[in-house]
């Protein structure tokens, strides 16, 4: 394509003006732009959208799993009466790995995706802010939905507003407990005992017997009822003989 010098003759100028006015009328009557005029228009999101993360403090067992699994390193554990997570939304990629890895269901997702913050500092959402859902201020007058086919890409605008009640998606969690798969490989290093935040693994000294005969002095490790299934011991075990097992 060649760049040509625009003709400045009055007839050409007039023709261009007519073109522009025609386009303006066309857009006013049947608009075909595909950008969304946010916040006056709001896109309709899928139902299972991963959004704002909510914390139920009473369920949190401070196992640090969410902080360890976070691929964006957005979760920090802060100390209140115990360690609780806080999410830095400047980093969060809304993958909800933290929600899925949470062993007790203390973290849950919501369908709230449009978040506005006044400053970068505010985007570091504190634990106390995570415990309640944020207030919703709506300015949208239209809902927009994309329709994408092979041939066209168009928007459908509807006057009706989408219902924006924020749903907490409560994950289904079965209680789990630490379990030793292969006690014969236990080093006896007691690392599991030391890492356990709930003192659920206890040790007692005993005499070790093999087929009724005392073979030496040893210890018994016990996983007690206190175990909440955080999996810290599973991660710590140097022989990787511990797992989490569902309990009925």
């Amino acid at each position: 394509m060649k760049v040509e010098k625009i003709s400045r003759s009055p007839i050409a100028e007039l023709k261009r003006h007519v073109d522009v006015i025609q386009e303006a009328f066309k857009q006013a009557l049947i608009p075909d732009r595909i950008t969304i005029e946010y916040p006056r228009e709001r896109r309709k999101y899928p139902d299972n959208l991963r959004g704002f993360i909510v914390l139920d403090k009473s369920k949190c067992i401070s196992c640090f799993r969410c902080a360890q699994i976070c691929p964006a390193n957005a979760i920090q554990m802060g100390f209140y009466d115990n360690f609780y997570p806080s999410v830095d939304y400047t980093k969060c990629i809304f993958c909800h790995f933290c929600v899925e890895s949470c062993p007790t269901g203390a973290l849950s997702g919501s369908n709230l995706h449009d978040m506005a913050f006044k400053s970068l500092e505010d985007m570091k959402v504190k634990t106390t802010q995570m415990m309640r859902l944020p207030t919703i201020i709506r300015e949208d007058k239209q809902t927009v939905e994309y329709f994408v086919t092979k041939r066209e890409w168009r928007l459908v605008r509807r006057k009706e507003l989408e219902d924006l009640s924020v749903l907490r998606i409560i994950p289904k969690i079965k209680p789990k407990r630490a379990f030793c798969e292969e006690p014969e490989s236990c080093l006896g290093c007691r690392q599991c005992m030391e890492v356990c935040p709930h003192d659920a693994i206890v040790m007692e000294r005993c005499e070790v017997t093999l087929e009724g005969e005392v073979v030496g002095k040893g210890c018994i490790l016990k996983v007690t009822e206190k175990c909440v299934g955080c999996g810290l011991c599973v991660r710590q075990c140097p022989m990787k003989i511990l797992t989490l097992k569902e309990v009925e």
Partner: protein
Amino acid sequence: MQEWQFVVPEKKHKKKFFGNLKTEVIDAKLCCHCAACAAICPVYGITAGDKPIDFPNWVKDCVDCGACIKVCPRWEYKPLNGIGNYVEAISAKSRRFRGQDGAMVSEITATALEMGLVEKAIFVSRDEDWRTKVITIREPSQLYDRKVTGTKYCYADSIPALKEAILSSKAVAFVGTPCMVSAVRKMQKSFKKFERVKLVIGLFCTENFYHHQLSEFLLKHKGVDLMKATKTDIKKGKFIVRFIDGSRISFPVKELEEIIPSGCKVCQDFSAIESDVSVGSVGSESGFSTVLVRTEIAKAIVDKIKEKGTAEIKEPDLGAVQKLCDYKIKIHPYPPKKKEEKGEKG
């Protein structure tokens, strides 16, 4: 509620277990540098590498579990000697691989991998400077690398790599010196997970060296640089170094006496008695390896090699192997004669 029990070994001194190990094995100059303790240590505090085994700051960091003592082949040391039990002895040369002599370690490993008996094997490779480097073999094709095959007369941390390997796979092969083989057997006895080590290939061994001491010795006394070497060998009491340009030097192993680590000086196990299969050059003609098959799994592999014809097979001269076994007992007496501090050992 679930419970399980484990034995805690008895202490000989009123210290933490690593303190016991240090007094009884390391300071008593019995340590063979197999690095089994470094592998098993749950807090990864024990350090190996090209220096004596140590645990910096053990008084504070040792968790006193006793795992290191359970796996140490030199704790309550009873030296093994002789040629040991074997079901078959052959002298063979691989048709596929090129190695130290007959490349039978590579051949056996490759066959085990092909048969699906093991998923991976822990081998020792080297860098340009002949420093040992532990690598994992997953494909027989990796064994064509001449850096992987061939003997390195330096310590390598194979057992720590072996432990990582058994955590991630169900069947592992291992190649090591007799002391490492003993350590692996001791680990298998104490901890069930090590039963995943399916194949243990032992190497004929008289002594091993620290890399820095060996390279320094060669540079200082012989004026040669290991960097330019392509092969090191011990044959008929001579240490031989071959170079890229085809030249070679050889001198009696006796000259290396001053740098032989103390742990090797009490070892009498020449033929890796506790291994599944022992391989070495002694007892075979040049270019062939002697293979002592000791267990069922090794027998199956050697039968497969014979069936496929991937190796040339000859009759070995076991008299030579026996002679070296006896020689090792003679040069490495236990308890050592001159050291009076060993008197207290029971």
